[in-house]
């Protein structure tokens, strides 16, 4: 129950599709999605493998609650070894694709090997077929979505695909499903591209059952009520989306601006949720037209936006005059504050192109920010950039850069390698705002200290979605902690990391945890699945997953020396705002964190820890 207990193994080298039974022993220990697929990856892939080589595997995995009526129960994750970081990568996406895979009767798909020619996979209920995709090469996400639905003459299909960025090995290429929901981070799209796998299209007409329906309906109904009554999930997110944070984080003095030179952005309001709701354009309509819920989501933080038709980016391109996925907070920050650009329509356009070409806007925007600093410092010039005037605040530079990056044309080819490689290439590695090669997102660790430890220890490189201590430090969820203090943050980060790993393995969206604790989630998981799932067992499951991922990374060659933040965050004090004068206190938090984790000083899990977790 809840699990379909069937997985699909696709060998791209041989062109075979083989059903397998799900390993239920692992399901009992790793739940699903992130945890369970990581278990398969660890079992089957050498951590030292070349991420873009044929020996890497890439797994699309749902959780047991995916496809159920639990609020937000529609998630899936893509698990592989990431090319941007060389660490284990796990990118989570919403939309409808994950639920559709469950309805087709599959918990996960494991892709292995490499196809000689471009292919895409169709999964129509129990029928899985690899198709020639040579016609799809060079096609955008949007074109591919339409082309596959048209080829199968089925508009009800859901397509998860790479754009040209994934084909061109942009190291932060993402995988986009349902046009604008993405498994966004760590370059999972480049892995797909490296395997000559363009897309996975699914159509399912079966049902998903749960173990104890009566209890499940009651538990999920209670959960939905909690979400509806919560100020963040019931009001803030539906009304403003994640963009509700733009002004909040800016005022908290934690908005990394212009490659983290500054910590507050004077243009924050112009690119905020409030600005998105203001009338603009000749039709008097605002940027934001509607909010969208992913499958089963009762929060509906998704933004559906439209670019002003008179804006320079689209005035001659009517093909962009329709509504599509709009700015989320991280994207607005990366495309805006990180580059100093405050033109909302330019940001929306760049965001559309990111969705269309399959580019992670966080890594892209941060990389453009770094390139702008290199440009302004005179490290790179027009000769190198091909005439691209990468000045902070230049909307034209941003929108041109985004067009070049996916296509890997001109300077876009260098931007597509990410900030760490770009800055290293031009001899200024310290300017890269990355951890383990991955650009950090929209929270400055000088202003929100817990996020420093979060970034430094995240198993997929810098990321806010591994332990979102912003919830506690800024929003007071579940309880308020001081964002400027380091005391107690090691424990907070560990608890958030473990809980998050469990949520990411369930099929639910992490955003529910603005309102839900594991006390709310455990009854839903427990009613859906066999076995006994309590808040404690979920937390332990999360800790097991965290250590499993850590082991993979350690075996891949990562050490404690990689649990570090960019120099700027450790040395250059915040210039303004509440955190003025502060740098990150990572040094104070990290040893405590290792100890709490049951790891050695070198950041290696002790045998005792491993055996306690059954690893």
């Amino acid at each position, binding site marked *: 129950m809840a699990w379909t207990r069937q997985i699909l193994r696709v060998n791209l080298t041989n062109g075979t599709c083989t059903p397998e039974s799900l390993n239920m022993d692992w399901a009992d220990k790793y739940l699903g999605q992130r945890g369970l697929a990581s278990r398969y990856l660890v079992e089957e892939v050498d951590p030292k493998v070349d991420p873009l080589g044929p020996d890497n595997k890439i797994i699309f995995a749902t959780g047991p609650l995916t*496809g*159920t*009526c639990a*609020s937000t129960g529609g998630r899936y994750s893509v698990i592989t070894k990431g090319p941007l970081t060389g660490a284990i990568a796990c990118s989570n996406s919403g939309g*409808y694709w994950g639920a559709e895979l469950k*309805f087709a009767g599959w918990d996960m798909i494991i892709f292995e090997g490499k196809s000689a020619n471009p292919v895409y996979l169709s999964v129509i209920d129990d029928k899985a077929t690899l198709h020639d995709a040579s016609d799809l090469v060079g096609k955008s996400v949007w074109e591919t979505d339409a082309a596959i639905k048209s080829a199968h003459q089925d508009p009800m299909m859901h397509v998860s695909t790479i754009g040209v960025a994934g084909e061109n090995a942009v190291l932060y290429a993402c995988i986009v499903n349902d*046009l604008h929901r993405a498994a966004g981070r760590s370059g999972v799209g480049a892995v797909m591209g490296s395997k000559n796998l363009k897309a996975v299209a699914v159509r*399912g*007409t*079966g*049902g*998903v*059952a*749960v173990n104890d*329906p009566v209890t499940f*309906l009651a538990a999920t109904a209670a959960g*939905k009520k909690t979400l*509806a009554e919560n100020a963040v999930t019931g009001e803030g997110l*539906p009304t403003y989306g994640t963009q509700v944070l733009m002004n909040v984080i800016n005022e908290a003095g934690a908005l990394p601006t212009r490659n983290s030179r500054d910590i507050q952005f004077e243009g924050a309001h112009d690119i905020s949720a409030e600005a998105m709701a203001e009338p603009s354009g000749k039709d008097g309509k605002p940027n934001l*037209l*509607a*909010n*969208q*819920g*992913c*499958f*089963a*989501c*009762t929060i*509906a933080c*998704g933004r*559906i936006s*439209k670019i002003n038709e008179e804006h320079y980016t689209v005035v001659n391109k009517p093909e962009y005059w*329709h*509504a*599509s996925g709009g700015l989320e907070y991280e994207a607005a920050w990366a495309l805006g504050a990180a580059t100093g650009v405050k033109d909302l329509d330019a940001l929306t356009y760049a965001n559309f192109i990111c969705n269309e070409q399959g580019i992670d806007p966080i890594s892209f925007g941060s990389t453009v920010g770094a390139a702008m600093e290199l440009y302004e410092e005179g490290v790179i010039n027009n000769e190198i950039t091909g005439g691209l005037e990468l000045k902070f605040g230049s909307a034209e530079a941003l929108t041109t850069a985004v067009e070049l990056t996916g296509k890997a044309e001109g300077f876009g080819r260098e931007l597509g390698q990410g900030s760490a490689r770009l800055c290293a290439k031009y001899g200024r590695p310290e300017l890269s705002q990355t951890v383990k090669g991955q650009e950090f997102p929209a929270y400055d660790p000088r202003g929100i200290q817990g996020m420093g430890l979060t970034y430094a220890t995240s198993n997929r490189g810098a990321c806010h979605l591994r332990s979102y201590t912003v919830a506690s430090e800024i929003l007071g969820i579940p309880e308020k902690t001081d964002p400027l203090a380091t005391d107690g943050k090691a424990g907070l980060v560990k608890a958030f990391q473990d809980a998050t790993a469990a949520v990411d393995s369930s099929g639910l969206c992490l955003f529910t945890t603005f309102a839900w604790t594991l006390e709310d989630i455990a009854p839903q998981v427990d009613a859906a699945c066999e076995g006994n799932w309590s808040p404690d067992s979920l937390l332990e499951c999360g800790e097991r997953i965290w250590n499993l991922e850590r082991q993979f990374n350690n075996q891949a060659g990562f050490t404690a020396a990689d649990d570090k933040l960019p120099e700027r965050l450790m040395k250059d004090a915040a210039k303004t705002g509440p955190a003025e004068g502060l740098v990150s206190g990572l040094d104070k938090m990290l040893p405590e964190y290792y100890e709490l984790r049951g790891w050695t000083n070198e950041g290696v899990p002790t045998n005792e820890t491993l055996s306690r977790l059954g690893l």
Partner: protein
Amino acid sequence: MQRALVIDPGKCTGCKQCELACSYEKEGVFNPAKSRIRVFDFHQNARFVPYTCTQCDEAWCQQACPTNAITTDAFGVKNVNDSLCVGCKVCTIACPFGTVNYNATTGKVIKCDMCGGDPACAKACPTDAIVYTDVEQAGYDKMAAWAKRTDAGAQAN
């Protein structure tokens, strides 16, 4: 007083909780493909439209049924009586709204039956895009007007 599902697409977020609730209520599993209500996604127009049976007064499905298997209850709801339905599918082509569908698994037709007066979709809708309310509503009148256009007879009364 007859009650009806009144649908306001402007409030719909496309979450499909209605499809999940409906399929669970009717099939015992979560299966949007078997839901009696369906949400259409017009993403380029930033519009989601939940769509189901309007329980029209002079119901085409009911009139076309050769075995009298579709009956009207006290609330005006058209119900399929499985023991009388032979699976001939005439109602599926007769319904101009396309809201009676054939279920190959059971060999019978399925349609919205308002869950006996307590529609699961309306209860599950998080945004009140679907509400169960009195029929004296503009939305229902609109549907009824549309229904009339399909009538082969322009009835005087």
